[in-house]
């Protein structure tokens, strides 16, 4: 088979930019294997529109990664199964929050059990350090949605390092509303 010339161009591009993209994909998808699958799915979409993309394909690829991840990408049941497993793991780690390394790992595990859209927002804001406006552009949503999703996600993450803080902020929110 004579491979499409786009494949050679894409391989060169991935040799340069593949690592940061895959890292983002792994964080969005929750594991190395799932991250590779997610990046591959995004590459397939990129190839479909290769002829109409001018300049670097990174922007398109990044947006596709986030959108696939935020839309659940895989079947919902798969996410649910993952959720149950991760919840179990998190409970065990929280038992000893004094250990910083465990806490970091526990935070990441908790990140992986967030709903896909909340996780995508957290990865965009705190891994890629995108602004709220940039995150909204990548995810194709409003800045208000980014803010609300971030607030919900952070509340759950904070609960891990400051038990009870999530409920307090929720009660505070109810009182003010």
């Amino acid at each position, binding site marked *: *088979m*004579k*491979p*499409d010339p*786009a*494949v050679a161009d*894409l*391989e060169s*591009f*991935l040799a340069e930019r*593949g*690592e940061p*993209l*895959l*890292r983002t994909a*792994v*964080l969005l998808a929750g594991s*190395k*294997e*799932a*991250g*590779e*699958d997610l*990046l*591959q*799915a995004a*590459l*397939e979409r*990129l*190839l*479909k529109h290769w002829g109409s993309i001018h300049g670097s394909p990174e922007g398109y690829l990044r947006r596709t990664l986030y959108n696939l991840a935020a839309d659940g990408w*895989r*079947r919902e049941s*798969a996410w649910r199964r993952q959720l149950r497993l991760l919840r179990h793991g998190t409970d065990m780690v929280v038992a000893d929050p004094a250990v*910083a390394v465990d*806490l*970091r*790992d*526990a*935070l*990441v595990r908790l*990140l992986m059990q967030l709903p896909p859209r909340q996780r995508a927002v*957290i*990865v965009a804001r*705190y*891994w890629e350090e995108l602004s709220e406006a940039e995150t909204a552009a990548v995810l194709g949503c409003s800045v208000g949605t980014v803010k609300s999703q*971030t607030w919900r996600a*952070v509340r759950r*993450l*904070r609960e891990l*390092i400051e038990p009870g803080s999530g409920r307090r902020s929720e009660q505070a929110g109810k009182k003010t509303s």
Partner: protein
Amino acid sequence: MNAQLRQLLRGGMERFVEDVRPPVGLALRAYQHRRKRRLVARAATATGVAAALTAVGVAGLTGAFGPGSGQQVQTAAYVTHVRHALASQAGGGLVGYARTVLGAGAVVEPEPGNWKDLSGGGRSLRSGVAAAVMIAWSYQNESTMTALDAAGQPVAVEQNTASGPYGTATLAVNYRDRAWWRVTVTLKPRARPPAQPSCFSPGFLPAHETWKSVILQELSCGAYTKDGHQRVDGIDAMKLTGSNGVVLWIDPKTYLPVRQADPGASVTDFRWFRATPASLANLKVVVPAGFRRVPPPRH
């Protein structure tokens, strides 16, 4: 987010991805997977088109009959058979047949009105079945596609029958799970019909009555170019090469496909038969005794 939480989260994420390196050939893998998936989608589309148009069509994936003199004898008989069938058909049309050998590791899943290609997804294939060969039969508003394993045993069957202008009734049997389901899906008609494409995509498999016009259109718009003649299965076939590398051999007298090859991915062989009780029996699907009925998958 306070500084402590941000720092911890950032540290955790860095640890989580510190060993991540992109595998070599990821772009090629994506390219090959996309090609393979398009093939399955086209085959399924062809089945749907055949049913929707109430015309005779055949859904073909890829596949090759083994070479050999026996094959040549069989093919010569087939050529005569098809031309007689075409000459003698009186509005009933032909029964189409296609045999496809799927690439290694292919995993498919019957869906209402369609098949999903899960190959290459790797890790979430609980619902799919590993398949080596796909056999498709089609006649008028009905088509049946069977997935076989490497030993030639059926692993899944799906039968689609057009039901009204927009509906498709699907019966599927999953041999691995000893289960079956049935559902009728009605597609909502589009508010506005899609613009007529100026060129068909190479590899698209239309119903047999429209093959000639499709081929001529694809040649005129440059999707395919004539690439001489080659002897294929005993036929002096016209070789057409698609702009995406797909090669199609057609019988110059009937304009029906003889073989389609997507180099490195798949080969499809086609047969066309008169509609007889024997050939039509291939479309029939019987749920084996003891199989349990399950809800159809979401799509």
